[in-house]
């Protein structure tokens, strides 16, 4: 799992959202949400609090990554690390509050003075821009630039990588974007004056402020837009601008002297610049961070297996390492449409018999793998509640008595046979399938391992209803990461039955419950944040009760930073170090 990227596609009924990948949060069950700082070096010291708080400006932060991500163009990117990093050189309408622990679970205005004002029952959203905003060349940033930026991001044939939320939710009336619909005005976005922007949606959507934090709302000057080539010359609206950009090799950011601190309460802008190297050897990156030649691996997916024992074994390195939780659930879909699992009692038997500890071991144990999951929503997502629908026993090794009782009730007291599908190129998924094969065999459930090619897993095999039902794929190993930390971002693509398509491609392999579908509609339209979060929590519980998902682990990783870094903390919104706040000594 080098990149945080789930393969999947979008275009569903309720919301054609591409799943994504993007990173996710980090409040572990063992960290509090205090925002105080600490200067005492210790394992996990930058998770849930600020390690080495600093106001000192200057220096260059050296970042590296082993493989390139989609794009630095704010309108053409869908990687969590990219959204984290883009805040250095762009400003979107809103952003997650910058801070450790639960701080980032709230949104705040960035270009906009504050959050959006809904009207028309959540179908219209209005934002007011701050005064004195400028591009790196000194020209003023207006609401028209934001409208242009959002409009160009609709052009998926040219800018292929970004999410499709604006395509799906804006009331476009046939408008396709500034390249395809030349000379036309985007009917879904109004700019009554230079500081006001109004979005018109095709249906009520209560969480539009989350859309407004997508980098695609960062202003792009129409005159400087070169389509797919814009990534080579991104015009900065943030505290840093591009000094150089070399495709596939890296780039350098330097201070943007047109950025005005007084317009920006969220950014400290400590370093004088950033050196980003793309395509470095993954093992060498770990070594260089330990040695101090590099400061941080921006992939944020944790150290390589080669360095793991060294990082955890040497106290002087371990005290520079952290163990954040991502908003990612590794789980197994239980297919209620194969004969053996049609009866909920048989599905219950799977839930009870599964050994959660070996599931965790398959992913790398409690630190490098993750926390044993008891529901779908990871703990850092608002609306999370600790569920215990299918107790796996006090030791988490499964409750065999209950499993046998469920089998009895199902009419197959001696168990049954089915297949378990997984992605062949993913060793952790293979290990999961083997672990389940062993633990379910204890009650007579016989699993046959069925590996499939990763690239076609969702399109042709597990993701295609006709294939999975006729080929008796009873269990399918799966994994999901949120676009952002809220119930909609995490759940809508994996619990809404209407995203399942006969042609394949959806990540939802097993959940189609009419009651849940209508609960999803209700949650999407709710504009009150607290009520909406509670609704998503209820959806989580309702899905669990149907025994169509066997939760595995909420992913965690061991990350390491150099000893030169200051003001370090994990931003839960990305599940990675906050690249906006880090400084150097």
């Amino acid at each position: 799992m080098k990149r945080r990227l789930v393969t999947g596609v979008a275009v569903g009924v309720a919301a054609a959202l591409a799943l994504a990948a993007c990173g996710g949060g980090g409040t572990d069950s063992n960290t509090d949400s205090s925002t105080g700082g600490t200067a005492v070096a210790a394992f996990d010291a930058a998770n849930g609090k600020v390690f080495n708080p600093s106001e000192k400006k200057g220096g260059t932060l050296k970042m590296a990554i082993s493989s390139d991500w989609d794009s630095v163009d704010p309108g053409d990117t869908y990687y969590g690390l990219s959204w984290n990093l883009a805040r250095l050189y762009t400003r979107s309408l809103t952003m997650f509050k910058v801070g450790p622990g639960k701080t980032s679970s709230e949104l705040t205005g960035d270009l906009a003075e504050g959050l959006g004002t809904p009207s028309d029952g959540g179908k219209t959203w209005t934002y007011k821009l701050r005064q004195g905003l400028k591009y790196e060349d000194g020209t003023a940033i207006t609401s028209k630039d934001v409208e242009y930026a959002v409009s160009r991001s609709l052009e998926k044939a040219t800018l292929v990588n970004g999410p499709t939320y604006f395509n799906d939710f804006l009331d476009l009336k046939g408008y396709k974007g500034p390249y395809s619909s030349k000379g036309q005005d985007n009917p879904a976005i109004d700019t009554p004056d230079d500081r006001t922007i109004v979005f018109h949606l095709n249906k009520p959507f209560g969480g539009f402020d989350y859309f407004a934090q997508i980098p695609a709302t960062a202003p792009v000057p129409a005159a400087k837009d070169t389509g797919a080539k814009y990534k080579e010359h991104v015009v900065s609206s943030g505290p840093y601008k591009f000094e150089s950009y070399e495709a596939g090799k890296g780039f350098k950011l330097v201070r943007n002297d047109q950025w005005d601190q007084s317009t920006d309460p969220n950014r400290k802008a400590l370093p004088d610049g950033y050196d980003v190297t793309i395509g470095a050897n993954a093992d060498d990156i770990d070594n260089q961070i330990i040695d101090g030649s590099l400061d941080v691996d921006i992939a944020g997916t944790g150290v390589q297996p080669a360095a793991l024992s060294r990082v955890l074994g040497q106290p002087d390195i371990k005290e520079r390492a952290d163990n954040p939780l991502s908003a990612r659930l590794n789980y197994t879909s239980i297919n209620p449409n194969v004969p053996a699992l049609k009866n909920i009692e048989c599905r219950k038997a799977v839930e009870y018999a599964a050994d959660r500890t070996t599931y965790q071991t398959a992913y790398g144990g409690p630190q490098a793998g993750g926390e044993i999951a008891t529901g779908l929503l990871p703990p850092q997502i608002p609306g999370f509640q600790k569920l215990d629908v299918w107790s796996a026993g006090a030791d988490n090794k499964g409750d065999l008595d209950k499993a046998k009782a469920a089998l009895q009730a199902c009419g197959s007291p001696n168990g049954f046979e089915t297949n378990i599908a997984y992605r062949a190129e993913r060793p952790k998924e293979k290990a999961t399938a083997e672990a389940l094969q062993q633990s379910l065999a204890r009650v007579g459930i016989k699993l046959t391992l069925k590996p499939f090619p990763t690239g076609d897993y969702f399109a042709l095999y597990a993701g295609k209803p006709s294939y999975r039902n006729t080929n008796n794929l009873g269990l399918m190993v799966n994994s999901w990461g949120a676009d952002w930390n809220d119930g909609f971002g995490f759940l809508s693509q994996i619990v809404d039955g209407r995203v399942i398509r006969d042609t394949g491609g959806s990540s939802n392999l097993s959940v189609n419950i009419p009651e849940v579908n209508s609960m999803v509609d209700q949650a999407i339209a709710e504009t009150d944040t607290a009520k909406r979060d509670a609704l998503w929590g209820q959806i989580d519980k309702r899905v669990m009760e149907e025994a169509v998902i066997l939760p595995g682990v909420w992913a965690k990783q061991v990350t390491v930073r150099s000893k030169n870094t200051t003001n370090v903390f994990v931003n839960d919104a990305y599940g990675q170090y906050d690249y906006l706040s880090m400084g150097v000594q």
Partner: protein
Amino acid sequence: MVAYIIRRLFGAVLTLLIVSMITFGIFYLVPRWAGGTANDLASRYVGRTANPEQVAEAAHGLGLDKPFFVQYWDWLQAIFVGRDFAFGATQAHCPAPCLGYSFIGRNPVLPDILDRLPVTASLAFGAAIIWVIFGVATGVVSALKRGSIFDRAAMGIALGGVSLPIFWTGLVSLVIFSYTLHWTKPGGAYTPIEQNPGEWAYSLLLPWITLALLFSAAYARLTRAGMLETMGEDYIRTARAKGLRERTVVTKHGLRAALTPIATIFGLDVGLLMGGAVLTESTFSLPGIGKYAIDAINANDMPKVMGFVIFAAGFVVIANLIVDVVYAVIDPRVRLA
């Protein structure tokens, strides 16, 4: 001689043409035999959010829905006249000589490769000089002092050098020399020669030595075997009998004859390395052609891989040609006809 070179040049072009056909076939024809459609190919280049209509539009805009031979012809003629692609409402132009256009990075392949050529060339030539000097010298001394402690030690080390993979020696030497002793630059450090020649050499020192270790081992063993054979020839005895100095006998009569096979593999090795020292560049994070190829393969960016294969094949073909010509110079017994 001129006629020979011209004939060989034609052969080289024909070889490249065949290589390009086979590679193109592997990337664009074999998937079709396996049941893949133009849309399956296009789906790699449309991002994760595309719907079937968008995929079909991309397949058409990129020309993936045309018959195979038309696609090959389009690719081939683009080398001479350039080519246009359509990404929805926007156009992209790949100017001649167009060796391919990356559908993911959205840029022509050839400028990218040329941009990375200096890194690979620096790596290949620096390492080549080291391995030839050390390899041949060690081989000669070993052969002359056959059975001595030097010979045994050198051949033992050589065996190790040939056997150890570069991704192991590279990472271990980085840990020892860069991160522990701080004698050399860390991985990924590369300074262009035109910026600062001293820094250039310093930054490449460790990759050179690591790569040269692998090759000089093979060269030492080859030189030793060749020297042992030639030094036993009658004409060596004759040369000694003429009263020539031993140094002259060894260098002019012995080594020159033993060098012929060395020159052959040297040309091919350098040619191959110029096409990208994939493992070395990946281990040391050097942004060369080999790294470019690996990144392209990982990203499934077929036009890039295709361009790389042709470029690398070009180097091997040219190296072959040079070797054949140089042969005649080293060994007067070889006549070109």
